[in-house]
């Protein structure tokens, strides 16, 4: 069911803001990732502006929902979202990768308000959310835990260790979101073309189902699909849920979309200007 159109426009506008911040921050830093962060924008915005029970003024609130960005290299998207949500000033996003900044190249829970777990070595962020979910049950807490995985990341074996154990313990206060953009840092040749490279991992929903998870597939850039999917995931009892969110790496900038070369490339001043024009053009227009 579609969500409230006013809310949808607001979330879409937030998504454009996040995308612009990502590109501007990476451009300023002269380093960082672009493709993966652009791929996860709607998911992060849906989480922090609609789904999560959080308090930006009290980032350590013990009863808050947990959200772990396991594909930690995409953290600039999370920083931009957290800033817009009020965890820290938006200007601070521009200190990304700078010395002594709280905006580290990969998430550091000891430095950045709103980061629930350090991550960055792919796969390692998959399991702490399971520990949080198990601990919530043990301590009688009702918070929900979300873990955001990359589709490249799920090549890591640790993810499937987690998938097995979560299923074994019928952990229904944990939801995984797979950012399924089908591109990774370098990837494998597509149709024998060594210059066109993809993540060839197939049957992703089937894999999670085989591990005993409740799987929901949706368009990871459409709030009308994404938000109901998140809400459905929270209602599943007796097993963990996995949202396979179909996304586009580099989403929102035509010359970055689907191109592995933009995994971690810094846009030139010209590229940045062109991208910002495209993003502004995508700003939602109020109906009527």
């Amino acid at each position, binding site marked *: 069911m579609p969500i409230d159109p006013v809310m949808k426009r607001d979330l879409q506008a937030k998504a454009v803001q996040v995308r612009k911040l990502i590109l501007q921050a990476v451009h300023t830093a002269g380093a960082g990732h672009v493709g993966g962060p652009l791929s996860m924008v709607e998911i992060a915005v849906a989480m922090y502006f609609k789904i999560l029970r959080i308090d930006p003024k009290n980032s350590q609130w013990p009863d808050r929902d947990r959200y772990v960005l396991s594909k930690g290299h995409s953290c600039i998207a999370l920083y931009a979202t957290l800033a817009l949500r009020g965890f820290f000033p938006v200007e601070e996003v521009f200190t990304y990768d700078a010395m002594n900044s709280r905006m580290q190249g990969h998430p550091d829970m000891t430095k950045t308000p709103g980061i629930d777990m*350090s991550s960055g070595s792919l796969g390692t962020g998959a399991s*702490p959310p399971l*520990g*949080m979910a198990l601990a*919530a049950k043990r301590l009688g807490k009702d918070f929900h835990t979300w873990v955001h995985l990359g589709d490249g990341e799920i090549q890591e074996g640790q993810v499937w260790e987690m998938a097995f154990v979560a299923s074994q313990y019928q952990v229904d206060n944990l939801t995984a979101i797979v950012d399924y953009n089908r591109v990774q840092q370098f990837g494998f040749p597509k149709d024998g073309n060594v210059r066109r490279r993809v993540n060839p991992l197939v049957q992703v929903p089937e894999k999670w189902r085989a591990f005993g998870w409740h799987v929901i597939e949706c368009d990871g850039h459409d709030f009308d699909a994404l938000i109901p999917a998140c809400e459905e995931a929270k209602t599943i009892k007796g097993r963990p849920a996995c949202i396979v969110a179909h996304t586009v790496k580099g989403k929102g900038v035509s010359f970055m979309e689907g191109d592995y070369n933009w995994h971690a490339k810094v846009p030139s001043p010209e590229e940045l200007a062109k991208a910002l024009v495209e993003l502004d053009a995508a700003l939602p227009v109020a109906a009527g």
Partner: protein
Amino acid sequence: MAKLIEMRATWGETMLELTKTHPNVMVLDGDLGNSTMAQIVAYNAPDFYMNMGIAEQNMMGVAAGMASVGLIPWLSSFACFLANRDLDQLRVTVTQPKLNVKLAGHYSGILTGKTGKTHIDVEDIAILRALPHMTVVAPADSVECRQAILVLTDMPGPAYLRITRDATPVIFGEDYRFAIGPVVPIREGKDLTIFGTGVQTTRALEACDLLASEGISAHLVHVPTLKPIDVNGIVAAARKTGRVLTTEDHNIIGGLGGAVAEVLGQHHPVPMKIHGLQDCYGESGPNDAMLEKYGLTPKHIAAAAKDLLSRTR
């Protein structure tokens, strides 16, 4: 003859004891409960026990997540898996964020019940000592093991406890109190200082008797805490005799010998010899034969002491 007790049994019993006083303690088992004695908790306090399956990397991350929410997870597995297989998970999700996760590294050293090289861990101290924020403790006997479990559970932050499999002599009285850091003088002597760690300290104690029978007076100091290392205690003990021998059931690189050399090299250089595994892996075999072949018996320690003396007298 000293009483012999299995440290792993003491670990299981002490964890069960902790469940009565520490409601937030949780034992996570890498499916080795009937080897590590985590089964004592599994059978008697099942709410405090979870089998994490044959999936150590996930287990380490689960512990990090639990600790972030306020539980005190004790991971139970073989030392070789905790220090080696899930090192990346330990580093990224436990020691970097300084989370309150405790590691019980069972079957450490070369005496692992004939399991052979894969399950023998003679690198754990070196690896874990190199991780910032990590505390590394190797108790000498079951009394000290129990004490260390109690202390480490109440200490915030990551810690590793090095535990052995088979029954070994109890050298400490029930009134012994372990503290993180300080070295523990075991026997006074004047000709050389011997530093031991873990169960190897009990073999060094026997070596002191062998040396005494030959008129050599060894000053024996036990080093239960490999990190943070007791700089003042090590310097003071070295100063007493001017010669230092270290002995450990661990590789001669990066373990107790390395830690003591780092201290003395910078603060009080003295002639020194590092005794332990000669940069090699182990194999399958009965305990006595293993100690003999790999040179860890009291006789070997005494020989190393005499070698040091002959070079420096």
